[in-house]
């Protein structure tokens, strides 16, 4: 076999106009290459959170995965982690099950056995189902109701339907809705807010917390910080939900409908003026003034400091990181750095960034990790670039890499500040980076 990896420059892509994304960049039009750089795509939870891990965000819950054995295979590693010990159970489907759906009749009894096997009675049982049930058209709500009656605990469905990854409600959006399903209407407290977005906390020192406290919020709740089931249930008293990840939008809309909790949405961005603008809009929506000047100054200083030390820094930006690779690349370009390559998935959402990138750096090359031609990506010659993201690091093993994919989530000014602190630290350790 032999060929070159496909890419298109930002200038060429922007010139092609909307609706003209080349087939090579559209995952539905080609086979999807599996390399370590695509692990996050081909097995969404193989890094960070997938449906299985996310479903266990409810304190005290356990999960029953109902599927052929292959779907639960990589859960072996999770079960070795202390926080998941004794929380995963499996009901394996055989060949007859996947054709007839007879496994559904076993689920209530299986849930009863699972509850009996737990050292402590679980607060809820999550039933995780996979592509097989997506195709069988299983009414999982009904199955869960029967299982709940049989076992005497709440039972909820988690849909690990890889087949619907690009559907209206993708699996990670659906599971975000599921984990808030047990909240019931409570009296609202004006000083309470929930942050929806991640299954791990945002950085402890994020300005988000300071800004929220500055406008009188006393209780800031995130599902990942709920220590027990009662504290999870208290999330129902929030005055509003702050959505920081678009995948939580469905959950937020459901909470608004069921519990009357409205939501405000903000996005993780790395362009400093956009961060500031978001906080302005946030304040306007709540009718308050947000003073973000100190955090903004700190972030500006971090960027300036790095630029002073490494004015000619060139980046290769991947998508396996806590950022939109195109927005982050645009931010780096606007701060005066070079971006040689972006490994990303082009969508309608990020085309706006690509147009701006094309204006500043039309020669920036855009690759898709998923193209079969990436089998031939030449990893040589990356010694002089700083790679951002684990995938970019895979393609340039000799470059300086900042994975930037910690489970603790960065956001806003502090996220930007920390990013440049990490970059400075990594670049400082390496030789040959000017």
């Amino acid at each position: 076999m032999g060929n070159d990896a496909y890419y298109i420059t930002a200038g060429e892509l922007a010139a092609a106009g909307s609706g003209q994304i080349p087939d090579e960049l559209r995952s539905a039009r080609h086979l999807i290459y599996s390399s370590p750089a695509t692990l996050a795509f081909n097995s969404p939870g193989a890094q960070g959170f997938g449906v299985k891990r996310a479903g266990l965000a409810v304190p005290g819950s356990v999960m029953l995965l109902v599927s052929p054995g292959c779907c639960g295979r990589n859960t072996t590693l999770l079960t070795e982690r202390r926080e998941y010990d004794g929380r995963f159970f499996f009901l394996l489907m055989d060949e007859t099950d996947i054709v007839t759906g007879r496994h559904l009749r076993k689920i209530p009894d299986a849930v009863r056995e699972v509850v009996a096997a737990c050292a402590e009675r679980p607060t809820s049982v999550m039933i995780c189902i996979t592509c097989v049930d997506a195709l069988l058209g299983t009414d999982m709500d009904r199955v869960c109701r029967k299982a709940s009656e049989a076992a005497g605990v709440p039972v909820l469905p988690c849909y690990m339907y890889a087949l619907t990854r690009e559907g209206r409600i993708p699996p990670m959006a659906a599971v975000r809705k599921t984990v808030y399903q047990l909240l019931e209407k409570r009296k609202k407290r004006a000083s309470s807010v929930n942050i929806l977005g991640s299954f791990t906390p945002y950085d402890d020192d994020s300005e988000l917390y300071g800004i929220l406290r500055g406008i009188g919020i006393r209780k800031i709740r995130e599902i990942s910080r709920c220590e027990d089931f009662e504290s999870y249930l208290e999330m129902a008293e929030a005055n509003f939900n702050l959505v920081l990840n678009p995948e939580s939008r469905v959950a937020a809309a459901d909470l608004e409908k069921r519990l009357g909790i409205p939501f405000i949405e903000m996005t993780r961005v790395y362009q400093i003026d956009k961060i500031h603008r978001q906080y302005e809009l946030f304040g306007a929506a709540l009718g308050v003034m947000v003073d973000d000047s100190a955090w903004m100054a700190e972030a500006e200083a971090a960027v300036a400091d790095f630029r002073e030390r490494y004015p000619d820094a060139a980046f290769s930006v991947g998508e396996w990181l806590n950022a939109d690779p195109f927005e982050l690349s645009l931010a780096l370009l606007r701060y005066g750095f070079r971006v040689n390559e972006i490994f990303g998935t082009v969508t309608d959402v990020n085309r706006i960034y690509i147009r701006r990138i094309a204006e500043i750096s039309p020669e920036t090359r855009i690759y898709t990790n998923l193209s079969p031609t990436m089998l031939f990506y030449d990893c040589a010659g990356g010694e002089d670039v700083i790679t951002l993201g684990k995938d970019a690091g895979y393609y340039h093993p000799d470059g300086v890499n900042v994975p930037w994919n910690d489970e603790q989530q960065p956001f806003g000014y502090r996220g930007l500040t920390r990013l440049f602190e990490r970059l400075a630290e990594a670049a400082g350790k390496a030789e040959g980076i000017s």
Partner: protein
Amino acid sequence: MRGLIRYLSPFAPDQSGASGVFYDLGGLIVICDAGGCTGNICGFDEPRWFSRRSGIMSAGLRDMDAILGRDDQLVEKLKSAVTRLGAPFAVLIGTPVPAVIGTDFRALGKMAGKRCGIPVLTVSCKGTGLYDEGEEEAYLSLMEAFAGGSGGGDDAGDAAPLKGLVGVIGATPLSTDTAMPPERLSSALGTDRLLCYGAAGGLSAVRRAPRAEKNLVISPSGIRAAEYLRERFGTPYEAAYPLVPRPVIETYPELRGKRVLVVHQQFAANAVREGLAGAGCEDVTCATFFMMKEEYAKPGDARFSTEESFTRFVEGGGFDAVIGDRFLSRAVRGFRGRWIHMPEFAVSGECADVGETGEGPERKSGT
């Protein structure tokens, strides 16, 4: 309840086994899935994935592909990839999605072969089987398609066997618990005159199969292919497992006079039993969760089909020691004897040679 797993987690599935046979052969390996199965194979069941590139692809099926049975679109994607990459052959491997919609893999393979102009093999895995079932079908289809074919050098085809040349079937990471089966086998057998089908030498080694003086079958998954080669080329075969980890061998003298259970893939377990017998330990039972060939079993050997049957067998068997992957010990909390760890990659995802050779897979958190 049958099928309910409370303490363990699922073992390597059939599609992982099939994929492992083709991994090093230079062809396009297409997993007919939505993406998750491919991620499981690569991120968990294929230790070579982090160190050696292979043309392993997901078909990227979506709900409408499955509902409408759009095989033609899959074939077009395959043709496009074959054209761009110039692959010498391709293999389509099944998963639960095509199993549910009843994909006819034989027909799909023929259609794809015609359209792409290269051999297109198929392995109709369902995701409900275990890795050795996938390996078995994969080895057989590989041999049927390429053994003795042209392109294996001047000594392929009908040429006579070469003295000392040994074919090896079943030397996959899943069956041998190492990311480097050919290297480990060469070292263990003291020869590099090996044709490790599917693991080294690419398709050329497979084409040279008739030149092997005999075949060594490392795992039960290789028996059917070995029988095929014996019928077609007259190559004799024998079962053997020369890769028992040194730390396990070192415990043999301590087990003299003890009642021992060995849990592993059948040929590896048998090799341990032979080693123990040599050290004076005669009361040894072999058991496995995987394939068990009756002709290689002794009375009392067992095959477990459920976690519960394993628990009962171990806790009620009166064994002084169990040799097996320590991951299994989770399910036998009532066992009071000695547990001697012998990694089994298809069970726990742990290689036996991590730390010994310095090469092992980088592991990722699961979903």
